[in-house]
């Protein structure tokens, strides 16, 4: 399955919706996409993973980098709509308590 993404501007930040499997064939490209969005200094960055059925640790590393950038700048980052397999890798890596994980984009917008 090919990977893609969609960026939506929010009143207070950005929403990145990812689609496809995120492994090492895609994570370097995804890192560049995230850096471009992070450069706009979004107060609230929401990452919608509803369309992501699989993610490995190279994808998780991209999200950790983004979280570090946002946290350092006192800005927010939310993950939402994690599928079971994707949530599993966050639990295995003990990152499920580090990220703010919401059930939906709406929940992330209102948090």
């Amino acid at each position, binding site marked *: 399955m090919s990977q893609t993404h969609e960026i939506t501007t929010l009143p207070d930040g950005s929403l990145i919706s990812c689609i496809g*499997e995120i*492994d*090492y*064939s895609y994570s370097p490209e995804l890192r560049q996409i995230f850096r471009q969005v992070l450069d706009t200094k979004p107060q609230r960055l929401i990452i919608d993973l509803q369309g992501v059925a*699989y993610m*490995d*640790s*190279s994808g*998780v*590393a*991209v999200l*950790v*980098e983004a*979280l*570090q950038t946002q946290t350092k700048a006192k800005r927010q980052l939310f993950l939402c709509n994690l599928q079971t*397999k994707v949530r*599993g*890798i966050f639990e*295995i*890596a*003990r990152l499920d308590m*580090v990220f703010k994980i919401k059930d939906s984009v709406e929940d992330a917008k209102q948090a």
Partner: protein
Amino acid sequence: MTFDVSDSHIQMRVISQPQYLCAIRNMINIIGGKCGLSSTETDHAVLAVDEATTNIIRHGYKDAPDQFINVAIRPLNDTAGQGMEIIIDDQCKDVSPDQIQERDLSVLKPGGLGIHILYRIMDHVHFEQRPDMQGIRLTLRKYHKPQENGS
């Protein structure tokens, strides 16, 4: 005890390009159930092999796109139960099994999670120097445990 690759039922030789990681994952996904693993256990085996082969491409081969990785699979049915053994061979230079270590997860930083994941989700993880030639051999085993979700 490590079994020889010649005991395997399936072998796959993959060039060291990330675009083919999905092919390895699909193979493990298909074979997991046939070896008696539950869907959750199969997912873990898929993730473990993906992490291991990504590490080889990224760190072992330093993203060189013209190297090879061999993945060999055989079903297990021994005193520990039913499951799957996966042997992953590379031809990496300048890497010794002693260098392959888990990192401290209490420090939040990107990267370095792959080895932790292997040890966390597989029943057996063993790195060794390849007996036949230069490179590292990784042996992974996953057994079916009826109490796990998805059994």
